[in-house]
């Protein structure tokens, strides 16, 4: 029935599609955007509690909701003890498993009744606890958040339960080629001596226990190292007593266990190597190419943003255009700098069809070499700068986005005024800047090249193209 109707409709469409007498001519060139509307970057009101906790308020009254983000510096993955990778992340996940006398279930029910959402997770240089609630329920939800941060009970039963959940998750880490590549790449770039090169293993996860969790929390969750960011329909004057009553009693129980920030020297990679990890039967190969990149406090921050946008940071970037749009070998290719306290990795990556694995590696290396060797055109540079600068308002549209932006700055001790100068700093980047940072921070000759794919299909090709020597690595090395 539907099919018959469709054929009739198609016949009619041929007639209807003839050019109609348009009432006004359609412009044949794109309209030029008008003057850029001013955007007011968030400018927080800052308060401090007697226990050292910094509180930032950004009032935005468009929706009757508030997002709260607590940033606990010194409690990130980098702060994991060398013998126990995963401890910061595990501690964060244990926070809402019982606190101030409420059980895990009671906490969950109380938050759900308030329609509130709470989550906690560790990033590299801080742990973040996030709360989203409607305005009227926010004070009550904030008290629960404070309980979870300052008074978690870490019940033995829940420690055991979450530890088992992590072990089960590890048991399936071999299922996904992308997950294998994501473990293997930093491990091969940084090695086990560097925190960025470590990952949670089954052996280490088995050793997670209540004492280690409590020790990490007691030593590292400290009000004087923390900032509470409140963004939304919140009046600082009215809310400050609520914050004081919820968080004012927070004391870190133990002495600080924060070691003096050791300079984390990034390893040097003498020459590029292709590390091939077998994933029999894989329909695609997961490719990761890169090396240590740059720290967050780099003076080259803005030039690097522009550089990366051109290389692999946007849809029209060189990597995506080449591997997806021109070659059709991938659903998408991209690159990025993970900027942390120390130099996190620069990674160029894609999943590519198995039969084109070697050719794709060649194209990656060609693009990484080209950005160093040739100046970018004025047009390409301008597009990248405008993409970043004019797109800025989209990054501060929602309360959670503003919270997240400020949390990122707080983690690295960067002033909120960063948000006010970002656009002009991006627009000031020149082609020479891009060329200079490309030669400093893109090093295809000193790169780790990880390929996770069907060895029987891709090894010969990878050896034949001879981008770099090929080493076979066992999957168990990265999914222990």
């Amino acid at each position: 029935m539907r099919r018959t109707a469709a054929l009739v409709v198609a016949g009619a469409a041929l007639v209807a599609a003839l050019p109609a007498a348009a009432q006004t001519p359609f412009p044949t060139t794109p309209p030029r955007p008008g003057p850029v509307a001013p955007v007011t970057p968030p400018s927080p009101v800052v308060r401090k509690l007697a226990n050292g906790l910094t509180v930032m308020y950004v009032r935005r009254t468009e929706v009757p909701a508030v997002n709260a983000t607590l940033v606990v510096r010194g409690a990130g993955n980098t702060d994991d003890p060398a013998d126990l990778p995963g401890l910061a992340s595990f501690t964060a996940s244990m926070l809402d498993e019982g606190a101030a006398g409420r059980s895990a279930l009671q906490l969950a029910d109380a938050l759900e009744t308030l329609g509130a959402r709470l989550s906690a997770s560790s990033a590299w240089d801080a742990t973040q606890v996030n709360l989203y609630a409607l305005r009227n329920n926010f004070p009550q939800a904030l008290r629960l958040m404070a309980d979870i941060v300052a008074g978690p009970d870490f019940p033995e039963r829940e420690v055991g339960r979450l530890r088992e959940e992590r072990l089960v998750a590890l048991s399936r880490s071999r299922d996904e080629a992308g997950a294998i590549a994501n473990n293997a790449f930093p491990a091969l770039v940084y090695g086990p001596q560097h925190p960025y090169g470590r990952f949670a293993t089954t052996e280490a996860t088995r050793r997670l226990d209540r004492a280690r969790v409590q020790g990490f929390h007691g030593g590292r969750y400290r009000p004087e190292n923390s900032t509470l960011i409140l963004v939304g329909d919140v009046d600082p004057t009215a809310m400050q007593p609520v914050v004081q009553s919820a968080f004012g009693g927070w004391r870190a129980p133990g002495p600080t266990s924060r070691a003096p920030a050791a300079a984390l020297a990034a390893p040097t990679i003498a020459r590029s190597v292709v590390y091939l990890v077998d994933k029999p039967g894989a329909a695609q190969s997961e490719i990761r190419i890169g090396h240590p990149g740059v720290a967050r406090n780099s003076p080259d921050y803005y030039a690097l943003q522009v550089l990366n946008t051109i290389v692999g940071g946007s849809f029209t970037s060189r990597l995506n255009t080449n591997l997806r749009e021109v070659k059709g070998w991938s659903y998408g290719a991209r690159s990025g700098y993970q900027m942390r306290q120390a130099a996190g990795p620069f990674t160029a990556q894609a999943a590519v069809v198995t039969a084109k694995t070697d050719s794709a590696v060649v194209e990656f290396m060609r693009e990484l070499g080209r950005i160093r060797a040739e100046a970018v055109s004025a047009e390409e540079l301008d597009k990248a700068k405008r993409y970043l600068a004019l797109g800025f308002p989209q990054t501060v549209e929602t309360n959670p986005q503003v919270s997240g932006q400020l949390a990122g700055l707080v983690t690295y001790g960067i002033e909120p005024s960063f948000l006010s100068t970002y656009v002009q700093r991006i627009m000031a980047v020149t082609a020479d800047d891009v060329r200079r940072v490309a030669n400093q921070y893109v090093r295809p000759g000193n790169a780790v090249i990880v390929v996770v794919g069907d060895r029987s299909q891709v090894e010969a090709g990878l050896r034949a193209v001879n981008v770099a020597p090929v080493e076979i690595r066992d999957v168990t090395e990265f999914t222990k």
Partner: protein
Amino acid sequence: MKRLALLMSLAAAPAMAQEVSIPHTTFTLPNGLRVIVAEDHSTPVAAVNVWYHVGSGYEKPGRTGFAHLFEHVMFEGSRNVKEGDFDNLLEAAGGQNNGSTNTDRTNYYEIVPSNAVELALWLEADRMGGLLDAFNTQKLTGQRDVVKNERRQSYENQPYGLLWETAAAALYPAGHPYSWSTIGSMADLDSASVEDVSEFFRMYYAPNNATLTIAGDVNTAQIRPMVERLFGGIPRGPAVERPRIPVPQIAATRYITREDRVTLPQVSVIWRGVPRGHADEAALDVAAALLTDGKSARLYKRLVYDQQVASQTSSFNNANLLSGDFWVTVRGKQGTQLDSMEAAVTEEVGRLAQAPPSADEVQRVVNQIVTGFVSSLETVAGKADQLNSYQYYFGDPGYVGRDLARYRAVTPADVQRVTRQYLTGKNRVVISFVPTGKTELAAKETD
């Protein structure tokens, strides 16, 4: 984000007491294009969002995946936009764009600084009016390769990635347009021709088969003449009839086993639900959340929290234009016998059918849903898509207030009734995904 005109009450359970609306105006061009404008000046950003009322549910057997492949072609240039410039122009204006295809519709959107709204509208108008002028075989083959890689990346190379396709084929009779997946089959993608593209465009991509929403920092009085000038000259197409197919029942309970390169066995139990907008949709949504959303949710608490025999649970009331399905999925641990997981699902569903849930349980779920409504409308992009969605499924872009009211009205007795009516004792499809060579772990018919 924002300006959600929320009227707050001072009552103690405020999540229950809010009114939500998205202020907007609508108009329709002579060629049938329906336009919705929602002003929101809180951030100098605007979203342009076009819904074409066609998805994989409008496809023919042998041409599966075509609506989605076509979506890709739409970004490859049109009469006045050379290949690549759709993205080049938007990026140079600080904009983002994308599109998506499901069974019922295909959407396209741009999120731009508000000074670039006219550019986004011009790009949409140029491809609505002039896609075929710039179309060629090379564009089709290029995007066919990209889509095949999307299929490899998102389905074939993903653990459990073929679950959706397996379920579609089992849940619907052959020939029903929900019996295949939106991504389509490799063979059908290969056979798509340039003529198919042209035919598809003429049939479905006409202004009278689309809605255009602009949400954000725009002035309605200025937008209207702009839209009229850019879209007014595009000829109306033939009327497109929505497929009208009665909701098919599942003829018999079926057990299906798939071996996959996975470590953890997983079982999905799927019943026939209701189409989008059906009077029982909200109660089924609440039932799904009661089973698996949150630590106290019944199935999660039993299998993951208390007994610790499963690694995760999820449920989902999937309601679409022509039909709906109610999904419950349990992923076990290594070596888990899925019979026992399936039995737990059946028992918990049965318990809900025997006695209504507590008022507190329902209240918790509804309060979470209310917060979800507010947060999903924080972006102009989310708001624009919601307006188009309400227009398509409910014929009223202003449906958001009534939509929320549907959830607030759900009672414990409603949850019990829909569980009884649609789930317990009804035919279902049970799909086991087991590690290769471990078919003995699969759920099996016991009666």
